[in-house]
């Protein structure tokens, strides 16, 4: 790894012959079926934002039901029609449908596609120093498969029997039997179809991310000089590539069970006065397959957020990230462990208790690399010189949410304690903090930080601060008290809690109302962001070339990078990305493309040896250019 080997001759699998000359592409090729990674990233981002508003508004609808169970929803009839029942209340099946779609949309369409899709696409070529993704065409296909998947999922909201309603995990037999609930009919078919395309999309994206990171790094960009963002995208892509196919097989088997009479998941079922012929299947098999993706999925949404915030916190603390290698190591550890903890979602499914012990042990190990990451973040802030840009605020928010949500994972990962907490609001609070809100904060931090690079304009900072404080306080007001409801034993996915009996519902009436109001305020505050985002695209202040005085390569491109990213040669990389506030240096940052020979006053003793290697790095220019020409 001492010298960069960024030459990949086999890069050009696609046959269109651009030589980085500006040949004008039409509107459609520039903005719609674009192969430019920056455009694709923006497509993902805007789709993700739209999905986030939809997913969020669904949660507001069911929070209204939970917070104000007595309220008449008649006023929603113009919007929801028959989903408001005759008594003016939300239909019970529609309640489950909303819970399901909220989860599906947020996990897959917002935090996987919107977060990883946006920033992996945008930042990988810019930060490793590549002209574009390894395959622009596959990258384009990846977005359009995602788009197709979105259209199908969206359309399922409008069918008469309603969208999928069995929870976002769609456990069979509920999801396999249309007679079990209306949502398991056409809605579930559409769900499965949509997810199939979604998986195809994310596989194409993932392959591209991995290839680009391995093959297209600029000269000098060794693995140990890569920004942590790139490391996190790399691990994310590996996770996705290895686990999404398993979800695809789970979905395919479910499709077979639903449509072709197989019995992979079905056995000995008597429903609606009818004994089904299926025997020998296992409903638990589905859960194993689902969570084999489902658990890595947690890290698929979280790792990019952690990577981006590492970058943002280092930049805005004006300090190197503390423990760069430990950060990589802990992400590597999390990635590896992510594959072998899935059954902690299944402690009480009737799985062999011995497996429960094994998975408890493996699950609690994950706390160690996670703790290392949290401590490294905190130490990065220590003796820094913190600039609170909106991105920095959201990053600090992420660290706090990651800790607060993470610690309860230690409780839930303990199989003995999980018995009582499983499927209660304690779990809901836990994963919303550590995975939902933390990843969302990463997404927001990323948008605020890289907006100038994306659109050449600045977002309004003051609105950013207001947005942050509303969201941060709001998220804690929603999810912190939710733990209490969980400790009180309230199960999730309940339309109302009357059947718990003993007035236990009354005990938390106020609390549920409080959570719902807080959720509404938090959700409404996102309008500030939406306005700021869309307004700034067109009317924001023109961005300077390097607005945050950052070291990474994307800030060496022109303010509005064209296709190919750098008009001239791609810069070489001579140092790691975290030379902030280096003693002796005149500025408090030294970009990665500044050679050590130019910074004699601030070089550490061992870095003077790097000067001799600069020639080798320069020598790779020819080979690098070669790889881009046909």
């Amino acid at each position, binding site marked *: 790894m001492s010298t960069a080997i960024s030459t990949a001759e086999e890069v050009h699998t696609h046959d269109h012959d651009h030589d980085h000359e500006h040949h004008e592409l039409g509107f459609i090729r520039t903005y719609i079926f674009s192969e430019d990674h920056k455009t694709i990233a923006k497509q993902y981002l805007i789709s993700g934002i739209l999905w986030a508003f939809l997913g969020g508004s669904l949660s507001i609808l069911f929070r209204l039901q939970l917070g104000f169970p007595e309220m008449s929803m008649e006023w929603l009839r113009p919007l929801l029609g028959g989903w408001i029942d005759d008594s003016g209340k939300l239909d019970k099946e529609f309640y489950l449908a909303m819970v399901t779609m909220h989860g599906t949309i947020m996990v897959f369409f917002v935090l996987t596609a919107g977060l990883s899709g946006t920033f992996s696409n945008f930042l990988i070529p810019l930060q490793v120093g590549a002209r574009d993704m390894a395959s622009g065409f596959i990258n384009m296909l990846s977005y359009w498969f995602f788009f197709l998947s979105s259209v199908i999922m969206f359309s399922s909201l409008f069918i008469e029997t309603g969208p999928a309603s069995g929870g976002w995990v769609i456990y069979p037999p509920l999801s396999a039997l249309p007679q079990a609930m209306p949502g398991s009919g056409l809605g579930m078919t559409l769900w499965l179809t949509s997810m199939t395309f979604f998986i195809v999309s994310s596989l194409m994206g993932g392959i591209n991310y991995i290839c680009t990171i391995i093959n297209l790094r600029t000269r000098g960009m060794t693995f140990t000089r890569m920004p942590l963002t790139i490391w996190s995208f790399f691990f994310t892509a590996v996770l996705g590539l290895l686990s999404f196919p398993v979800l695809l097989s789970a979905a395919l088997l479910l499709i077979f069970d639903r449509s072709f009479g197989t019995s992979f998941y079905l056995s000995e079922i008597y429903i609606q006065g009818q004994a089904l012929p299926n025997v020998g299947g296992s409903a638990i098999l589905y859960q194993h397959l689902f969570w084999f993706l489902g658990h890595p999925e947690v890290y698929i949404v979280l790792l990019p957020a952690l990577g981006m915030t590492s970058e943002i916190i280092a930049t805005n603390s004006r300090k190197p990230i503390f423990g760069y290698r430990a950060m990589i190591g802990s992400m590597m550890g999390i990635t590896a462990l992510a594959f072998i903890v899935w059954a902690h979602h299944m402690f009480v499914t009737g799985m062999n208790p011995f497996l429960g012990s094994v998975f408890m042990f493996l699950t609690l190990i994950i706390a160690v690399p996670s703790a290392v990451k949290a401590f490294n973040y905190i130490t990065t802030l220590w003796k820094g010189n913190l600039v609170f840009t909106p991105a920095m605020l959201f990053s600090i928010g992420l660290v706090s949410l990651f800790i607060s949500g993470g610690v309860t994972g230690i409780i839930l990962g303990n199989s*003995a304690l999980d018995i009582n907490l499983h499927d209660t609001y304690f779990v809901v609070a836990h994963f919303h903090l550590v995975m939902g809100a933390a990843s969302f904060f990463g997404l927001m931090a990323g948008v605020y930080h890289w907006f100038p690079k994306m659109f050449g304009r600045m977002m309004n900072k003051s609105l950013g601060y207001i947005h942050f404080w509303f969201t941060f306080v709001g998220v804690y007001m929603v999810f912190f008290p939710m733990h209490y409801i969980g400790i009180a034993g309230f199960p999730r996915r309940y339309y109302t809690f009357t059947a718990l009996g003993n007035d236990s519902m009354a005990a938390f009436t106020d609390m549920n109302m409080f959570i719902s109001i807080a959720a509404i305020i938090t959700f409404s505050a996102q309008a500030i962001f939406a306005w700021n985002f869309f307004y700034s695209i067109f009317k924001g202040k023109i961005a300077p070339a390097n607005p945050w005085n950052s070291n990474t390569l994307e800030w060496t491109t022109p303010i509005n990078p064209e296709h190919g990213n750098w008009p001239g040669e791609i810069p070489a990389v001579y140092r790691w990305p975290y030379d902030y506030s280096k003693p002796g240096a005149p500025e408090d940052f030294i970009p990665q493309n500044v050679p050590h020979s130019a910074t004699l006053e601030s070089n550490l003793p061992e870095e003077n040896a790097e000067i001799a290697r600069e020639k080798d790095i320069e020598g790779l220019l020819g080979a690098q250019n070669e790889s881009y020409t046909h």
Partner: protein
Amino acid sequence: MNYLIGLLAIVFFFLAVSVIAKSVKLNNKLSGTEDEDSTVDNFNNANGIAMLIFWLLFVILGSWSFMNARPDFLPIAASEHGVKTDNMFWSSMAVVTFAFFISNTLLFYFAFKYRFNKNRKATFYPVNHKLELIWTVIPAIVMAVLVFTGWRTWRDITSQAPSNAAVIELTGHQFGWFVRYAGVEDGELGNVNYKLIDDTNSLGIDFTDKNSFDDFTATELHLPKGQPVLLKIRAQDVLHSVYLPFHRVKMDAVPGMPTKFWFVPTISTDEMRAKLGKPDFNFKVNCTEVCGRGHFGMSITVFVDEPEDYKKWVAEQKPFLATNPAYLDKVPTNLKAKASKYIPIEPIATDSTEAVSVN
């Protein structure tokens, strides 16, 4: 109501902050101190201070709300293992709350303390192996302790049920629970077969198995206090999950795959009523695996009786065969004589299998 007041307070707090911020900005604009090109603006200090204020308010409101919600948490567990897991829960909570408190405090305090100051330079401090080692090893040790205690408790809970356990079958269906007892004679549940389910025999009890002759069904769950109870759990249509909140019992009901959970109830219904001062208190079985429209309402009542009351109640129950003598036809000829024992002279044709079902 308290929450609403708290919420309004927070809202007004933010309105106040934003008004102040606006006026600061206006003031700066007027006096022309805002440096347009600097990455650091005049809100930097405010944001840094807000971080600390946020955390202080968080700790105060968080502690207050916890104390406020505490009376509504599940009261002390009504089962032997539940007391152990409750203790472990609260001791684990103490450990993680400590970690949560320390790390968040450092985070917000550092954010406040090291907010930008143009006269200061950040310390170039990229690595310290000793520190890394310390905060790898300490969490690892804590985790090891938690895993070990957790594993021991888990092992005990999931161990083989004692042979004297009362065997009770709970079968989930959309949307209710069927209860079947092993009966007084043999103490063993007879086989069931989902293909034998009909309107009366809603469990599909297989009368070719002689163990089924004395089985009786019920619409509520009666448990003997202080004695081990083995729940044999089934589902007929989709996944369900048996949840007895007060007994800290939870186990999924899976079609085609019987599951089980054994435990020892330690507090009778009467004792719990007295303890809570609620004369109409009842234990419940609820469902915690989403199963469709009526999921939230899928509950039956549980009575934990003193052992002698339980015995009395069991003795009063009539075997399914006794209340539905028509099913004698299903019994193979060689067992007819044994089965006929349970048939009363005057057959009563009622259906006792229908459990509470909620839509």
